[in-house]
């Protein structure tokens, strides 16, 4: 029984992360009918942004609550800006093209982020370039060489994984006769719930949320009604990216290893969660994330653990075969 309860706790912890990332997918699909494959990598950038800020604030040696909050807010800001930039430069120019074009661009942005972050640091690249020039017998002009010294030497981070410092002291409790819960689990669950509730309020109780839903029903008519469609779409991307940053920081606190391809798997699984819950539906993404988290944990714990990743994709295939609109999705008829 304790083993089952422990699996429940673990599954809940996993599920909330998938739910937070899935929300980004679902909202963007709702307004743009685009599956933003780069979203998993926005999550990765959020983790690294948090890592760089935490290192700059020296969280490793002197953790404190204000610093943790600063790391959170900073990473959210960076991801929000990144989401805005991706939409502005990669998707908006293609808005009047066939949907396939944007999809392929999304995959391109995803690879750009993944492999861009695996490049050696800017300073190392600069030094290598200088080495090449010197090999040809040329010299770098003085002002350019001066720039070399100020280039960052830890960005891009390269493929070696980094370890996120612990923002606060870890406390473990044993409850219900053997189930291990830590304060990290509690905090991450609480933060995830707070953000999901906040998102529900934004989507259903604010003017922006109403505009977002209007754009997702019919963007052309919404534009005719006076809604600034481009601004709403940008705002949706920013919102989704902020949630991805939150998810990344919650993960990084308790599973501290971060590397440039850490967003690939969670991104794909969150996409499956969003489809499962009904892509375009906000409560669907939350429920889908939780269900996927639980399923993954139960399958990995009770059957062969190497099916852990496979179960997500098996669920995707099942959902598409049996109920393609997802749990909360509406079957929409297309008038020809």
């Amino acid at each position, binding site marked *: 029984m304790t083993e089952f309860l422990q699996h429940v706790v673990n599954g809940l*912890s996993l599920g909330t992360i998938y739910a937070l990332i899935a929300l980004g997918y679902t909202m963007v699909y709702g307004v743009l009918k685009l599956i933003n494959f780069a979203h998993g990598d926005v999550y990765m950038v959020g983790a690294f942004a948090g890592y760089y800020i935490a290192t700059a604030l020296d969280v490793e040696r002197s953790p404190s609550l204000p610093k943790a909050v600063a790391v959170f807010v900073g990473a959210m800001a960076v991801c929000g800006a990144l989401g805005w930039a991706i939409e502005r430069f990669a998707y908006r120019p293609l808005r009047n093209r066939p949907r396939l074009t944007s999809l392929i661009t999304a995959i391109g942005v995803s690879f750009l982020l993944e492999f861009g972050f695996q490049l050696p640091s800017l300073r*190392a690249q600069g030094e290598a370039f200088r080495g090449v020039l010197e090999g040809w017998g040329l010299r770098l002009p003085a002002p350019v060489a001066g720039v070399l010294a100020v280039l960052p030497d830890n960005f891009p981070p390269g493929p070696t994984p980094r370890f996120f410092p612990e923002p606060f002291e870890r406390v473990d409790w044993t409850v219900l006769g053997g189930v291990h819960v830590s304060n990290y689990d509690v905090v991450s669950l609480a933060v995830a719930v707070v953000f999901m509730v906040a998102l529900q309020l934004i989507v259903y109780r604010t003017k922006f949320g109403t505009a977002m839903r209007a754009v997702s029903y019919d963007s052309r008519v919404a534009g005719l009604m006076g809604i600034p469609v481009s601004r709403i779409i940008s705002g949706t991307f920013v919102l989704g990216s902020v949630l991805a940053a939150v998810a990344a920081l919650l993960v990084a606190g308790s599973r501290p290893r971060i590397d440039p391809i850490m967003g690939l798997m969670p991104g794909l699984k969150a996409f499956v969660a969003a489809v499962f819950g009904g892509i375009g539906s906000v409560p669907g993404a939350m429920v889908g994330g939780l269900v996927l988290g639980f399923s993954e944990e139960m399958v990995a*714990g009770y059957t062969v653990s190497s099916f852990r990743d496979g179960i997500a994709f098996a669920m995707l295939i099942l959902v598409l075969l049996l109920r393609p609109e997802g749990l909360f999705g509406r079957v929409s008829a297309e008038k020809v």
Partner: protein
Amino acid sequence: MRPARMVAILAAALGAAACEAKKPGADAAPAAASAAPSADRILVGHIGSMTGSEATFGLSTDNGIKLAIEQWNAKGGINGRQIGLKTYDDQGKPEEAAVAATRLTVNDKVNVLLGEVASSRSLAMAPVADANGVPMITPSSTNPRVTKENGKVRPFVFRVCFIDPFQGTVAAKFARNDLKVSKVAILRDVGNDYSMGLADYFLAKFKELGGTIVDDQSYKAGDQDFKAQLTAIKGKNPEVIYVPGYYTDVALIARQSRELGMRQPLLGGDGWDSSKLFEIGGKAIEGSFYSNHYASDDPSPRIQDFVKAYQKRFGSTPDGLAAMGYDAAMVAFDAMKRASEPAGTSLRDAIAATKDYPGVTGIITIDQNHDASKPAVVVEVKGGTSVYVTTVKP
């Protein structure tokens, strides 16, 4: 049309610049290791994971090789010829290792290929070495398939370390006889030849010695969450958990197992050997054990001389990978001195004839399978470092 063409030109320029920056950055400038850039230089090629999840493997091995080269060059080189080093980073990816092997053997025309530490990457390099007739010595790959595939010994591939059937036996014997446990759970890396092989050999030997394997779980390298597998293992109550993986994952597994309240010691193999294991694992990995090629606190003079020389040159204590890199390079140079020609088939024959070479990690004799038969040590993680426990002879 015009903006599209501009974009195409920009992309081409970017591509060219990126190619420039990546290639030279990938090879470590052999500043201390090379002397006059004469055409009469002997070139050693090294492929290692300088970045990626096993970054310390490549960096340590490279340092060991550099130390060996510098020591030989200081004594006048091999038959008067200075030795140079060309290192490529495979980022921990087998495809990159194969590409680097082709580049070293075909373009750079190295005399000998050293690498890789990880068996999966050595397996990618071995066919390239064979195809191009360049002898390859892997310093620390322990999977038997690296030198012998389908019953046939690869003609140009050698190793200077023990193999996993032996390493698995060492761990099983240690668990049974020294730790005196009878119930062990295994947590293996399912995508890694080394981990799968070692786990299988351990399993077979442990059962043969009368123990029981209560659970056999798996994970994928790079996973962040092991709690599902660990919770399942916890329910079966093993006395020891055998985790034959690489140090980054092992450190996280140790931490998460302690978070779940599991107190059993972990047992592992030479894939644990890294300073990062202690850094990341912290208190969680204390009291666990692993089998290794050598122990840096071994008082024998040969080892201590090496440790002191390495500390003087690099400022840190050499781990097993550095010692193996050093031995691999030394064996290669010893063979080059004996060979009629320090390249190709005559070098290959000289390496194959290596007998009783006094390496830092033990007496090295290359057998008919191109493997070395050497003892293994078991070390314990104590006080943030590895402490020698016992030696197991083959």
